[in-house]
């Protein structure tokens, strides 16, 4: 039964990949959505079965077949459902289904074959993601891990005719490979150390040990695994691919680059909670990197002008929170935030997709504004998502974020707590800056003059250029070229006075369901102090196999105070955003002019891309080009091959003179040969 969960999307992929181009969009979309919804139904049934079991014995194992058995090494294709993977499969199939439904409307402008290609990738992604979270050992997880990376690459570069999109796809893939390298090394080291790659067996082997005091094998294993997590989950230093990944279609950003795939690293740490708990050094690294990433991405998010990029940095920032939680040992809080974040971040991305869809591909915040009255459904759902992510009490984000901050404080990491709180403030500010810029005020009819022309977001220009290019191509050849963006021609020019359409029914459905989720999802983890039972954490606890010791120690008064502080911070952030971007935009401009230096630093994303380019990409390129290519390849390798050919050619040139064509000469040499051989044998 568990096998059916990843198998259904895989079947959907196969059907759409094989026949998708020959059937209508409705059929391709129905197959894809049907596969996801079917998978969701099976997941629900499985989780119900799981919940009926005794809390300590909550696990459903489905050993499908033995994949590799070689000497001591044994890897079974085994799927295992426990509370942790149960949460994950519900998020993946549930939110995945909604995003599939949303996509049927969002991608409607594509031609039939592209539409089917899109949905086949999306289904393939879901299948791999489900394998990732259901796999019972490192190798199966790695299969999913690589598979989602592949689908991420395919979907970021979905509009591959646009150079920035195919570049972004390559960047994502290559940066992820660096992380995967760490993951594979961690996997191998774990096998060498424990002789098994099964999660349960490793946890069982580690549990009786004492936590490593210094830096030992377990620290090395976990640190290498964390390198993999930084790649997949976009943490420092490998986060650079995620903002660029926004070149993909917006539903893809929602599903892969916000709700599911990027959380794989968090899930992996949760899955190996016992292992990580025995490596305090690694945990500290995880917590610090998570916090620094959260703060850094939050500050960058403050000044970005591309609606999707703001959300991308927000995602990086929120993922940082999850790693902070993992790093301080609050595994349940981290997974809880993963789960609530999936709702409101998917909602925000889908909302931004609805805005982009309505504005014919416009992504620049400075050219939006006043959409509140024109796109009411989008506005209200987006607002709910923003409130949820900002951490206003009562909505999903509050419970999970507060839980993380509380656990951080309770575990004694005061500095990390302060930084986390600051990030929380930033989150509220940049999210409401986004809301106020996009939905309030008035829309600028003309493109605003960029303060820094070189930093002007190229997305909008690409759209115009590519549309024009597509148009000329279409006029030259009857072959339909798909548009660079799902822009409907009737939507008119950027910022024109044309009537804007609010989200079509399929999109509105997804938005509304996710908005409801963003409000209520947090209540499953209602902390005891607010009258809840903290059911979420208790449900997950057996899956981690780690019992937080300080839980009983926590004082209720402290918890309430901290809760109040983080609520105040959230409200303050919204207030600040309201002042600068709603009431008094000149103040914002003045402030920006006063701090021109830091502003440029932020607008250029701390120049991290440039630093990586100068420190890593260019040296590699130069060594490869002038060293490996022109010297090693052209001179040494080609030289050896060509040299052999030349020696043989030159020798043959002389040797072939023997072939004179004279029969008598041949006869003479034959005779001479016979005489010589006979003479040799007959000579006494």
């Amino acid at each position: 039964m568990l096998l059916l969960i990843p198998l259904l999307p895989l079947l959907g992929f196969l059907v759409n990949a094989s026949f998708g181009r020959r059937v209508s969009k409705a059929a391709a979309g129905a197959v894809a959505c049907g596969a996801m919804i079917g998978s969701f139904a099976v997941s629900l049934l499985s989780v119900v079965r799981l919940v009926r079991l005794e809390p300590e014995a909550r696990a459903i194992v489905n050993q499908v077949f033995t994949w590799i058995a070689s000497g001591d090494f044994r890897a079974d294709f085994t799927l295992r459902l426990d509370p942790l993977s149960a949460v994950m499969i519900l998020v993946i199939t549930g939110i995945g289904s909604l995003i599939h439904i949303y996509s049927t409307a969002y991608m409607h402008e594509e031609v039939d074959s592209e539409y089917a290609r899109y949905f086949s990738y999306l289904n393939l992604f879901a299948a791999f993601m489900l394998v990732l979270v259901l796999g019972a050992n490192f190798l199966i997880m790695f299969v999913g891990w690589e598979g989602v990376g592949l689908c991420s690459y395919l979907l970021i570069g979905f509009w591959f005719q646009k150079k920035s999109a195919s570049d972004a796809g390559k960047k994502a893939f290559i940066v992820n490979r660096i992380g995967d390298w760490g993951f594979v090394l961690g996997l191998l080291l774990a096998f060498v150390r424990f002789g098994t790659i099964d999660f349960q067996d490793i946890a069982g082997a580690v549990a009786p040990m004492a936590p490593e005091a210094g830096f030992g094998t377990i620290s090395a294993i976990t640190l290498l695994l964390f390198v993999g997590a930084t790649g997949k989950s976009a943490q420092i230093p490998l986060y650079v691919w995620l903002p660029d990944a926004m070149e993909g279609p917006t539903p893809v950003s929602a599903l892969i680059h916000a709700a599911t795939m990027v959380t794989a690293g968090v899930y992996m740490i949760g899955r190996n909670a016992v292992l990580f708990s025995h490596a305090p050094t690694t945990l500290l690294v995880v917590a610090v990197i998570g916090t620094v990433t959260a703060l850094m991405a939050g500050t960058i998010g403050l000044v970005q002008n591309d609606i999707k990029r703001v959300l991308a940095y927000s995602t990086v920032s929120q993922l940082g929170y999850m790693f902070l939680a993992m790093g301080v040992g609050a595994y349940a809080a981290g997974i809880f935030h993963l789960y609530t974040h999936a709702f409101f971040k998917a909602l925000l991305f889908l909302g931004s997709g609805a805005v982009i869809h309505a504005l014919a591909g416009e992504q620049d915040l400075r050219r939006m504004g006043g959409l509140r009255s024109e796109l009411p459904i989008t506005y209200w759902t987006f607002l709910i998502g923003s409130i949820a992510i900002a951490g206003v009490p009562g909505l999903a984000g509050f419970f999970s974020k507060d839980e993380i901050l509380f656990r951080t404080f309770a575990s004694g990491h005061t500095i990390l707590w302060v930084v986390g709180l600051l990030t929380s403030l930033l989150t509220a500010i940049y999210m409401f800056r986004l809301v106020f810029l996009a939905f309030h005020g008035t829309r600028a009819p003309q493109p605003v003059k960029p303060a820094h022309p070189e930093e002007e977001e190229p997305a909008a220009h690409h759209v115009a250029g590519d549309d024009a290019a597509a148009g000329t191509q279409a006029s030259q050849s009857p072959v339909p070229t798909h548009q660079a963006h799902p822009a409907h021609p009737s939507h008119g020019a950027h910022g024109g006075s044309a009537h804007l359409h609010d989200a079509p029914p399929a999109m509105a459905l997804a938005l509304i369901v996710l908005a409801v989720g963003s409000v209520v999802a947090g209540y499953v983890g209602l902390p005891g102090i607010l009258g809840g039972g903290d059911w979420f954490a208790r449900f997950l606890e057996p899956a981690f196999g780690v019992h937080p010791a300080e839980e009983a120690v926590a004082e209720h008064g402290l918890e309430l105070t901290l809760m109040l502080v983080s609520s105040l911070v959230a409200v303050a952030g919204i207030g600040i955003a309201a002042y600068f971007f709603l009431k008094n935009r000149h103040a914002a401009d003045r402030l920006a002019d006063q701090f021109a230096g830091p502003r440029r630093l932020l607008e250029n994303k701390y120049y991290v891309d440039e630093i990586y380019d100068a420190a890593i990409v260019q040296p590699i390129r130069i060594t490869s080009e002038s060293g490996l290519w022109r010297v090693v390849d052209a001179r040494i390798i080609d030289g050896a091959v060509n040299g052999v050919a030349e020696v043989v050619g030159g020798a043959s040139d002389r040797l072939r003179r023997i072939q004179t064509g004279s029969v008598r000469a041949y006869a003479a040499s034959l005779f001479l040969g016979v005489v010589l051989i006979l003479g040799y044998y007959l000579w006494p």
Partner: protein
Amino acid sequence: MIPLNYYLILSAVLFAIGTAGVFVRRNLITILLSIEIMLNAVNLTFVAFGRALGSADGQIIVFFVMTVAAAEAAVGLAIVIALFRHRESLNPESFASLKW
């Protein structure tokens, strides 16, 4: 009875004459004739040894050699005729175009 050595000496002389003919003469037909002489020198050796050792094997081999020699003569002459039609010449040096 004539001693074996005499036969062998005669055979060697014939073989040497044949070989010299092959190298010295510039007429393809003469060369073919020289080859026949060489073959018959060998035949003579076979028969002489067969007689000396009291065995029939030498004679049997000679029959084979004669058969093959007949076939060789037929094929060789046919080739010579074909070559002659082509070049109006029987000099082997005029057929040296099959080279590098």
